[in-house]
């Protein structure tokens, strides 16, 4: 099937980069996923400010990496989301075989662009600098770098400057589907012949101002504040809300034709993608998905990939550890037409890193590519007590890492606003 497809329209992944709560860098992330290492920790800040949820996924040791990687003038003007995104993008770029531009080199990569999304963006700078500064009538002392840190596109703009990207550079934002949507959008551009290569993914900072609104909605985990690594419990009967996460995941997408011409190492193929919205109807709302929208999105991705539902070998779900998990499993089953006993193995990266909001799709796409490339499915932590409504599908849920002959893995992200994005990855050697 693949051989008959136009090579300039086939999109492959040639670079990966990640800053995650359980590991920084792709090699360490791969090891953490395989070993089921949780990155969820007690966060002192959340305790001090009396949040209901006092645990979160926040990358560790990032400042040392930033110091070793970026010049002081750059460090002085990057907020946390941009720090995460810049590190992940640079790793993905060098992983794809490209060199970091030297200072004074005026060449531009006109055929390479970026779609790097964020869900909330520069809330840290708004809350910690702009509001206190303006309220104290000290606008003049805000300095030069507020705008570039709070403009929604700041995160992609930063990366274009670091890597001299000259194609479309933009930031998408579709709440928790942002990172997956970014990858779908980048692939569309390559398939349309408008770019050879796109850096795509998402980033989100670890910050109490970002997480406060979710805590107020009572959608965050509250019962495991003293047992952080057990707090993120997708598919579990005792799941009581999601654990906020943060970080960045970036992939380099490239047309197969261009990747092969330059002899690039190919991690996997992005076989297809789907994006839609449930229209806030039929049970869908600002905060809940229309199940029909979810199913259609999954089916759109399968049609785009040109595969049958029976060809799906594994699922990396959205699965946040809220009451929506059973509905999501039903939707996967309905969309694929595969019931209990036949549903492909289903896991949730969020069980290890929490819900990284706008970064979630990026982080989980990197995890998905690693799994489909190397033939394993990481464990879904903390669901030893499977939710009763999911019990019929219990055999599909891995509690330990499963080595598998994976060819096709499907990943979806669903977000506030009733928006959906779904990605179909294929092992390139088994294409």
């Amino acid at each position: 099937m693949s051989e008959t497809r136009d090579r300039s329209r086939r999109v492959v992944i040639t670079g990966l980069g990640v800053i995650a709560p359980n590991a920084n860098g792709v090699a360490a992330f791969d090891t953490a996923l395989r070993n089921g290492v949780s990155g969820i920790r007690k966060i002192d800040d959340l305790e001090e400010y009396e949040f209901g949820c006092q645990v979160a996924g926040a990358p560790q040791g990032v400042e040392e990496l930033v110091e070793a990687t970026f010049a002081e003038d750059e460090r002085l003007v990057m907020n946390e989301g941009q720090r995460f995104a810049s590190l992940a993008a640079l790793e993905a770029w060098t992983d794809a075989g490209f060199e970091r531009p030297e200072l004074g080199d005026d060449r531009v990569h006109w055929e390479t662009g970026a779609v790097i999304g964020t869900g909330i963006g520069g809330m840290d700078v708004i809350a910690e600098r702009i509001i206190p500064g303006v309220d104290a009538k000290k606008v003049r002392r805000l300095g030069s770098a507020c705008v570039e840190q709070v403009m929604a596109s700041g995160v992609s703009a930063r990366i274009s400057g670091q890597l001299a990207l000259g194609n479309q550079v933009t930031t998408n934002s579709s709440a928790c589907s942002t990172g997956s949507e970014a990858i779908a959008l980048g692939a569309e551009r390559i398939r349309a012949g408008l770019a050879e290569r796109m850096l795509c993914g998402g980033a989100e900072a670890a910050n109490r101002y970002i997480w406060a609104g979710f805590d107020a909605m009572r959608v965050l985990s509250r019962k495991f504040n003293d047992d952080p690594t057990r707090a993120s419990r997708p598919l579990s009967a005792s799941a009581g809300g999601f654990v906020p996460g943060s970080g960045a995941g970036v992939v380099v997408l490239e047309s197969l034709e261009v990747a092969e011409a330059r002899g690039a190492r190919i991690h996997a193929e992005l076989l297809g993608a789907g994006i839609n919205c449930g229209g806030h109807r039929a049970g869908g709302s600002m905060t809940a998905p229309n199940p029909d929208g979810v199913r259609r999105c999954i089916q759109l991705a399968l049609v785009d990939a040109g595969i049958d539902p029976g060809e799906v070998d594994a699922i990396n779900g959205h699965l946040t550890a809220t009451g929506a998990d059973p509905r999501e499993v039903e939707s996967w089953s309905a969309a694929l037409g595969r019931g209990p006993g036949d549903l492909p193995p289903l896991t949730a990266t969020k069980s290890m890193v929490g819900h990284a909001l706008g970064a979630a799709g990026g982080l989980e796409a990197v995890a998905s590519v690693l799994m489909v490339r190397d033939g394993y499915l990481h464990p879904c932590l903390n669901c030893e007590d499977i939710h009763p409504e999911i019990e019929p599908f219990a055999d599909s849920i891995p509690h330990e890492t499963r080595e598998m002959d994976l060819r096709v893995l499907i990943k979806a992200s669903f977000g506030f606003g009733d928006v959906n994005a779904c990605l179909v990855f294929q092992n390139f050697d088994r294409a």
Partner: protein
Amino acid sequence: MEQSEVMKSVVKILTPWAKNPDALAGVSMETNILDDLKVNSARLVDVVIAFEDEFDIEIADEDVDTVNTVGNAVNLIMSKLD
């Protein structure tokens, strides 16, 4: 405060923003902040705030417009210290 002391502080404040290490190494009163040191013009705002904090002075916006060289900055600061 001696001119050499002010000069030293000015250079220290400019250092993180200077993209031309050679010009920074040979910095003098005649060195142009934007053209020679290759400081991004937007960052002059941050440089001026740092001058104000370092020397406990206020620098008016119209004064900022007169600063092209390191010497201009040093002399402006010296005049505010008098």
